């Protein structure tokens, strides 16, 4: 990824267009599919769990890469549902700066 300000990279544009199409298809696909097939309990449970599983897979290696980051990540998990996201993120970042220095 090397793009200068105001520039439009062809490869980036291709990913954006493909990502936009994929996203729109997931949005119109629900009503379309439900009229044609009925999802079983297993399939809908898998579909429902996918976004969470993707997010876990994304954070797990980075969050557990060092003890300081794991501790800060645990802190964010504790407060994430109690405070606005901006606050939780700010607290997490502040915590990681301090913890990386002392651990």
């Amino acid at each position: 990824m090397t793009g200068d300000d105001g520039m439009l990279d062809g490869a980036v544009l291709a990913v954006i267009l493909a990502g936009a199409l994929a996203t729109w298809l997931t949005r119109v696909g629900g009503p379309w599919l439900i009229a044609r097939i009925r999802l079983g309990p297993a399939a809908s449970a898998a579909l429902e769990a996918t976004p969470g599983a993707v997010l876990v897979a994304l954070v797990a290696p980075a969050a557990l890469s060092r003890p300081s980051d794991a501790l800060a990540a645990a802190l964010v998990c504790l407060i994430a549902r109690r405070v606005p996201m901006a606050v939780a993120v700010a607290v997490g970042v502040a915590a990681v700066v301090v913890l990386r220095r002392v651990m």
Partner: protein
Amino acid sequence: MTLSSSSPPATVRREFALGAVHALPIVAGAVPFGFLLGSLAAKAGLSPLEMGLMSALVFAGSSQFVAVELWSRDAAGFAVVGSILLVNLRHLLMGATLAPRLEGKPPLRVGAALFLMADEVWALALRRGEALTFGYWFGVGLTLYVAWLASTVAGTLAGALIADPAAWGLDFTFIAVFLCLLAGFWSGAGALPPWLASAVAALSVHALMPGGPWHILAGAVAGGTVAAWRGRALS
């Protein structure tokens, strides 16, 4: 969505205005989020134009964060698109719940309305129940759309000014944001087994192939499999 195709313009305008007002608390939450996404995108090398195009065309916050994070690690294009798709698969289920309201409506208008189906738009629309109209839907959706576009582009313009993100712990921002998004998907202890399966699979694959995006796919498949198995057992 029953009224708007046949209702007078004054009613549509009133419904649109109501939707726009109801969207304001959502906008207040989305703007800092969009600004943060923009500043991270600038770090990943995206230009304000590219960020704006992405927000305008994809318009799905979590998946845009995932895409920007992958870009910051120079992931291949197919991996970025695949991850956007995986994160947005939940839309299939959300859209399915709207199906009864959309039946027999003009396909073009339905396609346009569903383009704006962000999580928050969907949640507000469901809360309207039988009273839901296209006017209300577009009032919520377009208000959030404009705010999202503006805040992500503004963040990209501002983010280009910060020199060394790691020194400020800003590399941790992604982790914190993803954990907050994850907390939003928490639905009680039943959510835990798929997440644990995903973590184990992702960590194992990441240990073997640290560079690629394969740990994300491994986590998604492992989590989905456990959820499917439990879904069948519970039914």
